[in-house]
């Protein structure tokens, strides 16, 4: 398990309209093995932060540490599980082939904890091993993407609104399964969403990011036991997060 530390991170982009400051001296610590959810208005830099943690984007200043390692070292060790908004499956590979791709690339440092067969079963893809992505629904495609993310046995899951494009029912089902999988693997999760109910349902801690440059406006520790099914309670938390987003105190 790795803790994530974001230390004095600045991020600016040069655009034709001038310098755009996304982060200025951003500091954040995510405890090892916790499920942290970042919420914030669109365009505030949630995805940018995730890219910086993954080492896909080098911050203008400051640094990120994953345990004792840099994001680049963690990436080289295959400790980072990345899941974006789309499934990004390769259309010429079967379900099984797409999952296996995660194990065919950069194999030296690979220590997978589960076989592909087990993963397929865990993510509810049994019977679809030989199907091609275009034959699957959006929800099934995201299941494949999830299995692929977990295949190398990552210690950190970086998830960028993975189920945003799915219908409510499918999303609900997948959130349940993600929670179950996380409880089994106990990775450190950094999850980006704009859905406050999703945040209230999943998070050990919700981090509210807002403003320009983006600052941490509030943090909520949610101690409720899992799986959380009390809609009223989830709604209360979502309401509190909404207030913090709107500018009130956390």
């Amino acid at each position, binding site marked *: 398990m790795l803790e994530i530390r974001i230390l004095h991170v600045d991020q600016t982009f040069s655009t034709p309209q001038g310098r755009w400051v996304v982060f200025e001296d951003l500091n954040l610590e995510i405890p090892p093995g916790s499920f942290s959810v970042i919420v914030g208005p669109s365009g505030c830099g949630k995805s940018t932060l995730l890219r910086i943690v*993954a080492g*896909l984007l080098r911050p203008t200043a400051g640094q990120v540490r994953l345990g004792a390692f840099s994001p*680049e070292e963690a*990436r*080289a060790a*295959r400790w*980072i599980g*990345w899941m*974006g*908004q*789309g499934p*990004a*499956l*390769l*259309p*010429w590979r079967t379900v099984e082939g797409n999952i296996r*791709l*995660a194990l*065919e*690339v*950069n194999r030296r440092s690979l220590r997978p904890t589960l076989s592909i067969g087990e993963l397929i079963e865990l993510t509810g893809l*049994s*019977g*679809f091993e*030989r*199907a*091609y*992505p*275009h*034959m699957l629904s959006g929800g099934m495609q995201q299941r494949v993407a999830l299995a692929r993310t977990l295949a*190398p046995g990552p210690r950190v899951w*970086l998830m960028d609104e993975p189920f945003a494009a799915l219908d409510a029912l499918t999303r609900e089902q997948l959130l349940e399964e993600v929670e179950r999988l996380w409880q089994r693997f106990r990775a450190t999760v950094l999850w980006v969403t704009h859905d406050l109910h999703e945040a209230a349902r999943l998070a050990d801690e919700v981090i509210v990011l807002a403003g320009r440059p983006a600052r941490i406006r509030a943090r909520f520790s949610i101690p409720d036991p899992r799986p959380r099914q009390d809609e009223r309670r989830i709604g209360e938390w979502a309401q509190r997060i909404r207030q913090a987003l709107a500018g009130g105190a956390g």
Partner: protein
Amino acid sequence: MSSRVLLQASARLIIRTARPARGWLRIALPFALPAALLAWELTVRILRVPVYLVPPPSRIFAVLWSERALYLQAATVTLGEAIAGLALGMGIALGLAVAATFYPPLERAVMPLVLLLKAIPLVAIAPILTLWFGFGLIPKVLMTALLTFYPALVSWMTGLQAVDPAALELMRAWNASDWEILRHLRWPSARPYTFTALKTAIPLAFIGAVVAEWTGASGGLGRAMWLAQTNLDMPRLFAAAFLLAAMSLTGYGLAAWGERRVAWWRL
């Protein structure tokens, strides 16, 4: 609900949507060429057009049949040159396109040169190549390579860049090497573009070989055409042209078939 049933249903749906051309068109298409030939035959006969201007198709086919050994040999020569030149041109194009994905500034460095080469007219290059390399195989192969290289390069450069950005990001998150990204992502994405390139390059390959033969050769369809033209022997000229067109069309058909097979998921 069994998954197998679902799979079969979706496969059936895919096959159905993949079917091209509407009903009547599918029936009419095979008759288009014979109809055109028939119209040609009748026009020439009714208007009594002299054979040394436009020969009737029946005459052309008669020549093709009576001198089939000769034409077969000439076609084999031209086909060999076209294939060798195509392989060379496309090979160089692939090498350059791959190199440019590893080292993007290369594209900006190479493209002006490539465009310059392409801007020189074919008829200007052909005699020079013959002058330099003689009447043998080399000038024909070079000529064909020069012509086919450009469409192949453009197709592959496009294909190797046209990858899903999300998949590329994922590969980076796995710390995949450039080579692994090429092998698992860029090349499979570019594969259909190979056939797009072939569809353009195959007809060009035959033109390249024939033009080179025209400026000096001991065999081939270009040579046959040149001989027929100097003798004002239109049936023989058209016979060679027909054969050339048939080979070109066959090649194009093969490339189109290959494209459908390789990029089946796009259907």
